[in-house]
């Protein structure tokens, strides 16, 4: 089996089989990261452009590491050093990048749909590394990978996603992915940060955190941005923390073996207490580790490589 598309634009439109293929491939590639020589020659001679129009540390580093471990040549391109900052359009920038004949373009962009726009105009594989409030598919994949490792499955697991759902691409990709694989997802946040029609994306919606956390197998806290407070979505970080912070006390309502996740970067003491972030149930740093393997799997499969099990 192979992926149907040459691009990874989002979880939207992916089948459960494709998602599982990526997760299984990541499982077999994860081992490379534990070797002494953390490198295989699979993508030797392939060029990947990491085109990050929005700041990112974790995702960009993770992609770069994945590319290097597969022996691809990585070119990092960010707006501060590019003509993009001089008013060149996204299309012209992309066409210029494409003239250098990359095999992959990994894009992080503040506007929803930017990767889809590029996919229509470029012939290389486009990988969405986060587009506005739309999707962040590799984050959802690494989250699913992490959950699967701990719980052995996704089907029928109770997952609570808490925070700024309105502006979160992580929430959207996770809702789509977890729903596709049969998990039971509840999203939770202040009504000012719950988008209209969310309940029609195969998830439950509530503004009561205790209701969301009750019996949850997975609790995912989302980063809250100070800019949202300024836009009037809530009065203060203090009040936000009081109402929606994932604390030890609240976590007691979840399943005893619940895991706690966060896509980072965290605001300690706001959406998640330090005690929970550093606690025994936290898998936040594992998410980062797993991110590299998942991104390796995505690159590997999009390059048209046959799944490893089949090859072996």
């Amino acid at each position, binding site marked *: 089996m192979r992926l149907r598309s040459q691009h990874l634009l989002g979880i939207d439109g992916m089948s459960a089989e494709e998602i599982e293929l990526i997760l299984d491939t990541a499982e077999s590639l994860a081992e490379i990261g534990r070797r002494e020589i953390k490198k295989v020659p699979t993508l030797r001679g392939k060029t990947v452009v990491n085109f990050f129009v929005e700041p990112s540390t974790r995702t960009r580093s993770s992609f770069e590491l994945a590319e290097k471990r597969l022996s691809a040549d990585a070119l990092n391109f960010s707006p501060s050093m590019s003509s993009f900052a001089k008013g060149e*359009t*996204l299309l012209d920038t992309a066409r210029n990048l494409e003239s250098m004949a990359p095999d992959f373009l990994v894009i992080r962009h503040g506007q929803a*749909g930017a990767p889809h726009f590029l996919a229509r105009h470029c012939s290389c594989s486009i990988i969405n590394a986060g587009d506005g409030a*739309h999707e962040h598919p590799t984050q959802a994949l690494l989250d699913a990978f992490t959950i699967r490792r701990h719980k052995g499955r996704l089907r029928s697991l109770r997952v609570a996603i808490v925070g700024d759902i309105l502006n979160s691409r992580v929430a*959207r990709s996770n809702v789509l992915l977890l729903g596709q694989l049969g998990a039971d997802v509840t999203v939770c946040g202040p009504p000012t940060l719950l988008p209209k029609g969310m309940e029609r994306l195969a998830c439950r919606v509530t503004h009561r955190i205790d209701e969301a956390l009750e019996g949850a197998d997975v609790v995912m806290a989302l980063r809250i941005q100070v800019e949202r407070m300024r836009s009037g979505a809530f009065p203060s970080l203090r009040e936000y923390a009081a109402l929606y912070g994932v604390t030890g006390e609240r976590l007691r309502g979840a399943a005893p073996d619940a895991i706690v996740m966060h896509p980072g970067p965290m605001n300690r003491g706001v959406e998640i207490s330090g005690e929970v972030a550093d606690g025994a149930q936290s898998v936040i740093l594992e998410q980062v580790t797993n991110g590299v393997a998942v991104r390796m799997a995505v690159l590997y499969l999009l390059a048209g490589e046959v799944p490893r099990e089949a090859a072996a």
Partner: protein
Amino acid sequence: MRLLLRGGRVVDPASSVDERLDLLLEDGRVVRADRGLAPDGAETLDVHGLVVCPGFLDMHVHLREPGQEWKETVESGTRAAAAGGFTGVACMPNTEPVHDTRSVTEYLVTRARSHGAVTVHPIGCVTKGQLGEELAEMHDMREAGARAFSDDGRPVSSSLVMRRALEYSRIFDVPIIDHCEDAVLVDGGVANEGVVATRMGLRGWPSIAEEIAVQRDLLLAEYTGGHVHIAHASTGRTIDLVREAKRRQVRATCEVTPHHLVLTDEAIAEYDTNAKMNPPLRAAEDCRALIQGLADGTVDAIATDHAPHHTDEKCVEFALAPFGVVGLETAVAICLDRLVQRGAIPLARLVELLTIGPARILRLDRGTLRPGAVADVTVLDLERTTTVRPEQFQSKGRNTPFGGWELRGAPVLTIVGGRVVHDAR
């Protein structure tokens, strides 16, 4: 100069005519429609099997001149109108400079005379600089030919200024056209607030932001006795509010666009900026309510909100693309195919919405084929099948969501003041 249209089915809702008649035009006026008229030296056009209507009027277009000639000009926009079956267009004042003084009205009238393929009815600004603060010189602009006033895409946000505008406009008995949008509530929204925008991660433009503005305008019109015209109604609730207001005898009229009638927000699913406009495409139940409004008489006109943009301007990230779609060259075929052929409204009702409906709103002595009327004529072929080909548009704008659509029914002949300006029979 005499012109005889022979053998067509004349549909003139203003005089309740729908029968097979010949139509004689002379010196820019209608002589009469009758059975078996002899050519008697007149140039004869055979229109057997075709439908002969009063010239269609599009009361909401953007000609982009002066100031944005790369998007459209009076010349290209009126050629698009002629090709689309329109004999007249009313053009919005959001030009550069904005049309808020007589000098711009005169410029438009002059350009239309020298370069216009169809009649142009300028719409002036309600307020100076389109800033929503002080009333513009309506009298002066009207003397020069302005037919209505509107601040268009930057609607008057102050209820006090809107009150004054509706009061002051009574002196001239002209409509104040409002693009109803509570901009604070829209808060940067780019797509209908709902599941589609949510799934796509786009900021929502809620229906309520239109409806609050509509209700404010209707109450102000009722209070002042002014005539408010609601531009491009896009939601079911807007239609309900207008219907109730009309029942209370409020001087209110409204228009809808073809795209809001036949497309839902699903059309933006691939981040297609050619389906991005303001107000945004709504839900299927809104489409149904708008069509109901056409059928029951709540809606007074179909207008395109023809908003040409350069391809480069539209070929960007969705949220950054300008709002607007072109419509002059697709409106009639869309309405014939999707509304008339499918039985949503009868042909005569569609003709009414494109002729006497908008003519009454703008107080134009047009929109009918009665003897003595201006010889503006639109001829339709209900059986002609066409495919929308944006690259062949007369308009400079290619930004249509209907590219590739195959449509049954098309305008085939356009006559302005007794002169053939487009003939695709």
